[in-house]
């Protein structure tokens, strides 16, 4: 759409920011990326997301949209002509929304507990994480993408976590590839898409970030 101004407030390394970047890239939308320092939030962020004060925020022609999956649905509905992310069939759409919601409810929190806890708690988090990945792998089945033949909404929701696997695996002492080979195959397939490879953070930088975060929070 000519004359569209799109700004994204996000942070490098945030899986939620990455979802928005992947979606915009899938649609071929040009945008301005503004990196936020979450320890020192900009007046703009506080103005456009006063309720949660969180990233990501999409600002489209001056109007803000918050919450990553809501933003992705918005992007899909506004720029609906190219690379649709949600299926057109209502039942398939419901399934896509269900699984994206599942990713939201389960993956971040469990992943965090792997690096933020130790001993029994860490072991439990690791087991839970593997369980969640296995459930997702089951849902993927033999499809190339969660969306079926085409890269879609659930793929966008989940793929940003892939660059965090290296950190989870290091701290949890496991290999996702061993536990869920089909899921890792799926992730590598997604990484072949430019929208994904250009949007995902460097796993080594993520790992370093977690190391310094643990130090800052006093977690050994």
């Amino acid at each position: 759409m000519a004359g569209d101004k799109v700004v994204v407030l996000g942070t490098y390394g945030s899986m939620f920011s990455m979802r928005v970047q992947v979606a915009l890239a899938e649609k071929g939308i040009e945008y301005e990326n503004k990196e936020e320092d979450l320890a020192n939030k900009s007046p703009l962020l506080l103005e456009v997301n006063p309720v949660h004060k969180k990233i990501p925020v999409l600002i489209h022609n001056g109007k803000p949209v918050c919450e990553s999956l809501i933003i992705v649905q918005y992007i899909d509905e506004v720029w609906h002509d190219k690379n649709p992310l949600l299926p057109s069939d209502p039942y398939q759409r419901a399934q896509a929304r269900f699984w994206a919601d599942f990713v939201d409810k389960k993956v971040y929190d469990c992943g965090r507990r792997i690096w933020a806890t130790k001993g029994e708690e860490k072991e439990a988090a690791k087991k839970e994480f593997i369980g969640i990945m296995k459930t997702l792998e089951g849902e993927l089945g033999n499809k190339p993408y969660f969306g079926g033949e085409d890269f879609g909404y659930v793929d966008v929701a989940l793929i940003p976590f892939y660059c965090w696997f290296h950190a989870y695996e290091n701290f949890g002492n496991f290999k996702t590839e061993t536990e869920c080979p089909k899921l890792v195959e799926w992730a590598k397939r997604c990484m072949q898409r430019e929208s994904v490879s250009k949007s995902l953070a460097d796993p080594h930088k993520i790992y370093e970030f977690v190391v310094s975060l643990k130090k800052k929070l006093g977690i050994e």
Partner: protein
Amino acid sequence: MAASDVKLLGARPSPFVNRVQVALNLKSIDYEFIPQNLADKSELLLKSNPVHKKVPVLIHGGQPISESLVIVQYVDEVWSGPPSLLPADPYDRATVRFWAAYIDEKWSPLVRNLINATDEQSKAAAAEKVFEGLKLLEDAFVNSSKGKGFFGGEKLGFLDVVLGCYLGWVRAGEIITGLKILDETKTAALVGWAERFTSNKAVDGVIPEPEELANFMKMQARAAAAADASSK
């Protein structure tokens, strides 16, 4: 469509189940309500929602859909005739989805904290947080309704269903805490909206009486305390 084509696995006290009932009523869809015993989950429930094992589950033409917000959007899309529950404009849709997420993820846990507060100090602190949230929702209502009676405008929409189905629990909470949660001196617009919502035909008979819910909550609290005590 024959009632047998549309089944709802649910439990009367659940506001999430109530949402689906109201949505189906608004669309004038006949359905079979299959009450579930959540303390002893049926094979049908476990088979239909193996991931979360929760209600509501809508089974349409044999296919299950879970998660109340997902189900309500599905109902709106399958039975796409009027009334439309979600707005047509993508920005308005993003706005209603934002407030629905806020209500479920942020505001309702605050209400639960208030109801479960054990001493006066934590009750007062919890109440303050609930009122702060209600002020945000009052503003959202004023912006959304544009002078009409509902979040959806002249007719009930998605946000009316999402927030409205919590009203039974809010009233039960008022009985249990002795506090006015919906207070016309604080959120007058929402108080008016609440009355209009509960007296709407589509809501009739869906939300249990506050006394029934208050008793249900007390029973649950006793069961939880007993389980706690016996596991020590």
